[in-house]
């Protein structure tokens, strides 16, 4: 990259790209360039319509109920998935035999596209939030599991030997060495894990539910309400950005000891 632009200039450029995108969308759907606007709008809607609909949805208290459901599913899937991943990651990393025996099954389970489980979970756990939590769990679990497993296995041998020479027993090592090391790896995958928890929730809702953002989008799709689909996607995007920002804040707080990228080494 050559000369970096200053912050304000960069922000202006970023906004400009968005505006140009919206402008192209607007021009192509409002003026008869690609075909009759009515027909084009059926497939692509228009930015103004989508924004209007989004505003309408956001001011309607109903959407907050849906967001609340999706948030609950995401958080529950993340918490259970992370807890399970940490527990099993630790167990397997500290017990080579267990890891070796279960290795093919873990790989097989991880290779399975989790979406196919959604109907099964709906059957087992019903159409409420728990079938979505289960789907999110299967996604989050493996990410956290592999990271914690790696984190515990790849503790620096020097740090470990030093801690042992300081007289730490297995409990001390677990608390002061293995656990923080595993947490580091877990947090490095935090964004991905939270993202997958959300994917589990939304896909689950999409495939069968009566509430949540995925349900809203599916509902609009089933009546060819493209404006509604885009509005739902926009709300979902904002939702994801907000969650991701919260994750970043948590991460910065918890990994305060870690050197900043590009900073003093």
């Amino acid at each position: 990259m050559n000369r970096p632009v200053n912050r304000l200039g960069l922000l202006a450029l970023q906004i400009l790209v968005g505006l140009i995108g919206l402008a192209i969308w607007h021009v192509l759907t409002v003026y008869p360039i690609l075909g009759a606007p009515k027909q084009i709008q059926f497939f692509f809607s228009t930015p103004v319509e989508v924004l209007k609909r989004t505003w309408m949805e956001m001011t309607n208290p109903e959407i907050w109920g849906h967001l609340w459901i999706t948030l609950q599913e995401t958080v529950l899937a993340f918490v259970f998935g992370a807890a399970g991943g940490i527990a099993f990651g630790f167990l397997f990393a500290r017990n080579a035999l267990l890891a070796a025996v279960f290795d093919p099954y873990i790989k097989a389970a991880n290779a399975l596209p989790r979406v196919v489980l959604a109907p099964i979970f709906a059957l087992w756990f019903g159409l409420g939030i728990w079938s979505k939590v289960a789907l999110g769990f299967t996604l989050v679990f493996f990410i956290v599991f592999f990271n914690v497993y790696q984190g515990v296995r790849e503790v620096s041998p020097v740090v470990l030997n030093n801690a042992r020479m300081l007289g730490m027993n297995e409990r001390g090592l677990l608390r002061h060495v293995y656990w923080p090391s595993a947490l580091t790896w877990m947090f490095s995958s935090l964004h991905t894990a939270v993202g997958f928890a959300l994917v589990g929730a939304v896909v689950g809702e999409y495939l069968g539910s009566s509430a949540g953002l995925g349900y809203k989008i599916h509902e609009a799709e089933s009546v060819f309400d493209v404006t509604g689909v885009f509005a739902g996607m926009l709300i979902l995007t904002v939702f994801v950005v907000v969650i991701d920002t919260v994750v970043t804040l948590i991460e910065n707080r918890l990994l305060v000891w870690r050197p900043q990228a590009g900073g003093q080494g």
Partner: protein
Amino acid sequence: MRLVGGTALGHGDAVRLEDVSIAFTLKGGKRYVAVEGIDLGVMPGEFVAIVGPTGSGKSTLLNAAAGLLKPASGRVTVFSSALSGLNARAGYLFQADALMPWKTALDNVAVALEPQSVKRAEALARARDWLGKVGLATFVDRYPHMLSGGQRKRVALAQMLIRDPEILLMDEPFGPLDAQTRQIMGNLLLDLWAANRKAVMFVTHDLEEAIALSDRVVVLSAGPAARIVGEFKVDLARPRDISEIRLEPQFHALYKEIWSCLRVEVSRAYASGPA
């Protein structure tokens, strides 16, 4: 002064290796003998430096004394009792960074007292005190990555010494530091050691450093199957200043004598393989 026939192995040794050999199994099943037939004792309060060419198994000897490695044959005794498992009476200063990166300097030092069941508040107070002694009073809340290489070594030194171990094992601890920092750290180490003399096994490849710090220099031969090829008493007066002592004629005489023994091994090490 060259000691004839090695050190007299006394019974009062803090740590003692008797006819110790250490071997590793390499990939492919080959056996590599790192050191062989080592007899070495360190008395309480004695500072022994071990020098030798790269790959002579200096660190291997320390690891055996620490209990991190089990000798293939021979025995290790600590205050006259056979060592099994880790050497609980020893502190170890590693060459590489061994601090816990997720703990502040203060916590890194304080945690060393946890296995001794010292109360947290007291441990913190003592850790603060020790960080002061190594000159880091104002850096207690820094994480290791915010400290320089020399400062990290100071924290590691405090972490080792706060437990008050009777034996100090140091594996090229100042190796990664620049020349000036090494001298400063060497003087700091001597000051702390003079205040509370422990048995020290100090591994280095730097002969000047070895002479400046120690009471006795042990020279290892080139590996594999390295043995002790010379032991020299360093009778320079203490207290010493590392940067000044190098200028004394007595130091030069010692250096020449030990170097004539070491150089043979160094050239052998270079001849037998890439450095």
